[in-house]
């Protein structure tokens, strides 16, 4: 072997060994301090300063911050986190960098507004974000729809929801259902039909598959809520007539002359507990349901749920 070949072989081996050594040491360090994740750090928090620092390339900076917001929300949502401290600042920076990035308002409000674990539980920040979006994109009726949605679903402010849908309906080329929603808010706000109508409208007007899936999940949950409410009333009637609780769902169905055993949207029959509560068989199938869940039910946490 020539001298040059020897150097090549030794250098090559050293390179590979050093590379493996670096990875190994880093892995050991990660085990030493598993909590040292950088996801709770926002080194620059001023949207104006970040816009200046982007030297005019604010569109790319907005995409980066939007991706960071999605990653931050996705990570914490996955681990059922109770706090989302950086979400609102990340979304506000994104919107400030690119005020026409509509996806940041549409998804951002649905990240911010719902209570944990489905969202950050910050509906007021969602309203502020949406109002900024409307101010920057006054001709976009979708934003009025999303804002009205937050007022209705998360803040239960039916008057504001009505006003927002009404304002949205006046935008040129707005979808006609905004007028219907405004009227619905005025007359029947708070009812199951209204919520169903809102989620159906969301499903029909979006092109995004994830929003469609989310709307389907909510519609399924609404059906569960409605079914459980009706079946619970039936259980009460059964008790009043017979002086006891129905032994099972089949007995209740027979007493109520139902055409068959009531099934949840997954096709599983509802069940009646010994205490007379109507519940779904698999609560994890309906993450947004508010009725029909065991009293001590908690979503199954994934590993590292302490995050």
């Amino acid at each position, binding site marked *: 072997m020539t001298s040059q070949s020897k150097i090549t072989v030794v250098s090559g081996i050293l390179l590979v060994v050093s590379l493996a050594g670096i990875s190994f040491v880093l892995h050991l360090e990660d085990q030493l301090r598993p909590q040292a994740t950088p996801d709770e750090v926002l080194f620059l928090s001023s949207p104006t300063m970040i816009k*200046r620092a982007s*030297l*005019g*390339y*604010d*569109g*790319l900076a*907005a*995409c980066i911050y*939007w*991706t960071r917001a*999605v*990653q931050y929300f996705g990570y914490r949502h996955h681990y059922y986190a109770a706090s989302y401290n950086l979400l609102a600042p990340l979304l506000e920076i994104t919107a400030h960098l*690119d005020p*026409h*990035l509509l*996806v940041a308002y549409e*998804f951002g409000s649905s990240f911010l507004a719902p209570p944990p674990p489905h969202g950050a539980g910050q509906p007021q920040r969602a309203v502020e974000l949406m109002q900024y979006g409307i101010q920057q994109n006054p001709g976009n009726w979708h934003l009025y729809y999303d804002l009205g949605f937050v007022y209705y679903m998360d803040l239960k402010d039916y008057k504001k929801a009505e006003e927002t849908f009404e304002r949205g309906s006046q935008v040129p080329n707005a979808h006609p259902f905004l007028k219907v929603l405004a009227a619905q808010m005025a007359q029947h706000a708070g009812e199951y039909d209204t919520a169903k109508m809102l989620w159906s409208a969301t499903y029909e007007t979006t092109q*995004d598959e*994830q929003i469609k899936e989310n709307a389907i999940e909510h519609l399924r949950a609404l059906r569960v809520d409605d079914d459980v409410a009706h079946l619970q009333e039936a259980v009460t009637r059964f008790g009043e007539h017979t002086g006891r609780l129905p032994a099972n769902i089949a007995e209740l169905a027979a007493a109520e002359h139902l055409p068959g055993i009531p099934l949840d949207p997954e096709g599983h029959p509802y069940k009646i507990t010994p205490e007379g509560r109507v519940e779904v068989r698999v609560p994890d199938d309906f993450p947004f349901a508010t009725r029909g869940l065991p009293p001590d039910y908690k979503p199954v946490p994934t590993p590292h749920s302490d995050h």
Partner: protein
Amino acid sequence: MRTSIAYIASNTFREAVRDRVLYNLIAFALLLSGAAILVGQISIEIEKLVVINLGLTAVSLFGIVIAIFIGIGLVSKEIEKRTLYTVLSRPVRRWQFIVGKFFGLAGTLVVNTFFMAIGVFAALFYVSHKFVKADALIFVALYFIILQFLIICSLSLLFSSFSTPLLSAIFAFSLFVIGSFAEDLRNFAAMAHGITRWLATGAAYLVPNFSAFNVITSIAHEQPVAGRLILQNTVYALFYATMALSGAVLIFERRDLK
């Protein structure tokens, strides 16, 4: 006269290619194809926006870096290697040398931008599976980027005509950064009083106004660019490049090369 300029320009272009300047295209291709594949998996609904924003930003930044780092060495390298004396001993005037260098560097950047533009459109096709009429607006953004390059090339040459490469790079890069804040500088001038106002206004008009050239974000949202802006930016870039080149020629004509 034209032949001398064309000769120096083509030599500058050949030298840049020999210096493997176009190797940056490989980094660009990797960056863009990586982003196009990755972003779809880690973000929501911005694949096309990222390809346009990242693609055009990379075209702009890669070009600016090339313009500065090649531009600052165009004169000093010739002096250092003593090839300048050979050139000037022929029937070539000093101003022709400067203008030829400018066109050579500008040509290199146009060729570089052309190949990068192909990459941007390829990545766009990969994420969208089709082209729409609004995608043609990307050509406007690319045109504005080339106009920016002309200004930066001329500034690099201006600085390299009297300063060292390191200082020239610092000056040129600083002017690029300050130029990105030109509109803020003008707003500041409007709020100031007395001599500060005059100085700030003077500085605001003297530094290149790059903010008017950056239409990447609006084009990513398919917002049209006014024809008037295209015309005004063209005229502005030509005036600015001519001004900086004239300054470079004035200085270089009087420079003692011994």
